[in-house]
């Protein structure tokens, strides 16, 4: 080595650095050129980026991504005056044509990224009880049910799940007359009695994906 101490100076901590690697990148498809936009906020391989409030979309079912992009595009989602984050997303979806929407959905489903770390402080045991209602549509393992219009919940960021449950509960999401599935979900979210129940049920869902 040319600079023996250089490696000390520059890399004394490197042994510790070798944490999560970019391993998933190689298995994940290259972003199609016109979908690079998605990765700017949602991160590489759509791994999610909380700094921009953009959730992980990797491995999500294509049917659901498509449905929600259409929801954004048609204004069922991202138009409520309190949905500030949805409003950030909406123009992007509105700019996509049908082919691009399908391609984006396919890209999301094919993308691979590590399961997100738990960030929400909730009681998974208490959440299990609440989840029994959710399980009817989303499945006991939270893997979703296309026939019922219920997306998989496993693999989503817990902070995103909390926000969406709050949005449904507060009518920020699911109150547009054309958003039929959203209306269903809105009614279900109302069953969660308080913020703690939301955190608990999310903690339970997170425990399903990490187990």
């Amino acid at each position, binding site marked *: 080595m040319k600079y023996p101490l250089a490696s000390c100076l520059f890399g004394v901590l490197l042994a510790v650095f070798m944490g999560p690697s970019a391993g998933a990148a190689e298995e994940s498809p290259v972003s199609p050129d016109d979908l690079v936009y998605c990765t700017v906020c949602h991160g590489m391989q759509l791994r999610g980026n909380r700094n921009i409030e953009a959730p992980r979309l990797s491995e999500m079912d294509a049917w659901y991504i498509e449905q929600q992009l259409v929801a954004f595009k048609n204004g069922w989602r991202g138009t409520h005056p309190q949905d500030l984050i949805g409003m950030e997303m909406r123009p992007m979806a509105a*700019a996509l044509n049908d082919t691009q929407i399908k391609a984006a959905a396919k890209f999301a489903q094919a993308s691979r990224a590590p399961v997100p770390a738990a960030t929400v402080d909730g009681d998974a045991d208490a959440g299990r009880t609440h989840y029994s209602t959710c399980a009817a549509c989303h499945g006991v393992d939270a893997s979703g049910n296309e026939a019922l219009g219920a997306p998989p919940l496993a693999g989503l960021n817990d902070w995103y799940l909390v926000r969406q449950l709050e949005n449904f509960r507060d009518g920020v999401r699911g109150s547009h007359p054309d958003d039929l599935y959203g209306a269903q979900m809105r009614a279900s979210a109302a069953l969660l009695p308080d913020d703690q129940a939301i955190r608990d049920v999310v903690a339970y869902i997170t425990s399903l994906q990490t187990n």
Partner: protein
Amino acid sequence: MDNLTRRRFLSLVGAAGGSSAVYKASMAMGLLADTGPMARLDIKSAGRGGKEVVILGAGLAGLTIAYELQRVGYNCTILEASHRVGGRSLTLRHGDVVDEMGYTQVCNFDDDPELFFNAGPARIPGHHRRVLHYCRELQVPLQVKANINRSAYVHESDHFGGKPVRLAEYVTDARGFLSELLYKAVDRNAFEQPLSEEDRVRLKELTQAFGDLDQDGLYKGSSRSGYKSGGFLGHGELKEPMEFGALLDSSFWRRGMAQSENFDWAEPLMEAVGGMDNIVKAFARQLKKPVVLKAQVQAVQLREDGVDVIYQHKGQRRKLAADYCFNSIPVHFMEGIPNNFSQDYRDALNAFERGNFFKIGLQMRERFWEREGIYGGITNTDQRINQIWYPSHGIHGSKGVVLGAYAFWNQSHFFERMTPEERIRYAADCGERIHPGYSDYIEAGVSVPWGRMNHMMGCGSRMTPENEERYFDRVRQPEGRHWMVGDQISYHSSWQEGALASAEYALNDFDQRARAAAAISSKG
């Protein structure tokens, strides 16, 4: 005034202007040791065999680092995610693409080099010595840019009948009223400690000079506001002062009256002739290797003796193995880019909050403001557009581009939620209340919400003061052979000088480490 001791008062007066204020402002910006021109950087040569440096982002920080390091023998590759060089140093002209998320705009100004809009940084004060150093070295022509213009307007929707008032009138009256009050306070000896007769005389003279009071210490208007009539072929007739109550009720003294005393905005300011991106172009011309455009970074992997950068370019994933990496990617994106950074470094990077600015540029078919006696400078309004800027160049030309809105920080969200067409219409309506007929002059317009721009999603990132205390030093230190740089890694985010300060810091840090390593190596 009862609780104000003489000593305290005099020190306050001292601080309101002059060297003390300058000194404090300098301290706050960490510029105290920085007065005088910037010295040319002295970086140790890369030596034989060269070394690979990868620079992420072709904004001013990245360009500067490439320019300095290639000069001493490093092989520098700049990867840039967007379609253009310059980052937020963006000047828009005819045909330029504004790559906003969801709304791709094409600048529809006339094809005329005089018609441009600085959508990012637009002003250079004389103490931004790094920017000025490179402008001098790279021979970028600069010109004085009017910033505060006493002939421009102060406009408040619910005050002064909603009519614009000349800045000169507003400021002169405000100072006149305050001075008169102070003059009376001196007469009544309303201080905790008695003033000597000599001090009283001087203090009264000072208030008279400050507020242009008459010999009895009364403010009855001043020629500083301009005359109501006359002044050349007849006696100038003073304008009636506004009502003190109306002035007190208005809000400009709170929002903007001290603008010209802000250290970074104080006259005179400068701008690059022909557009601020001429600074960018000057750097780009010097590069031995062209910037790789549309190259989005997919992963940053630190090695013991270097950094691997995986990026996507022309539909393929590629890997660049470098010895060193300088990274100016907006910090908030790093959480979405796979990396093997340590947790404490990631925590520090995630402590940043996305900043936000919004600007509109409007091409006007006539320079109507010049007919109102306004040549350059800024009109302030309490409407959401905040400001209208008049161009300092192209005086008496046929057309001009004005800044039609400038929203700061979270004010930007209001405009971000509109379509580009809605934004222009909104700004036109606001302008109409200041310059009747404004809308009809608008021929073309373009809006730039930095919080929605592709590969940016923000501008002027910053941390809370507590997080600055905790993390700032960490983020400017390297992680392995990887340095975060850019205006974001400075106490002057959203200024070009902040980007250059960060670049200079990183280069000096890099050089110190390289020299230390070389010294050890030669001994060993």
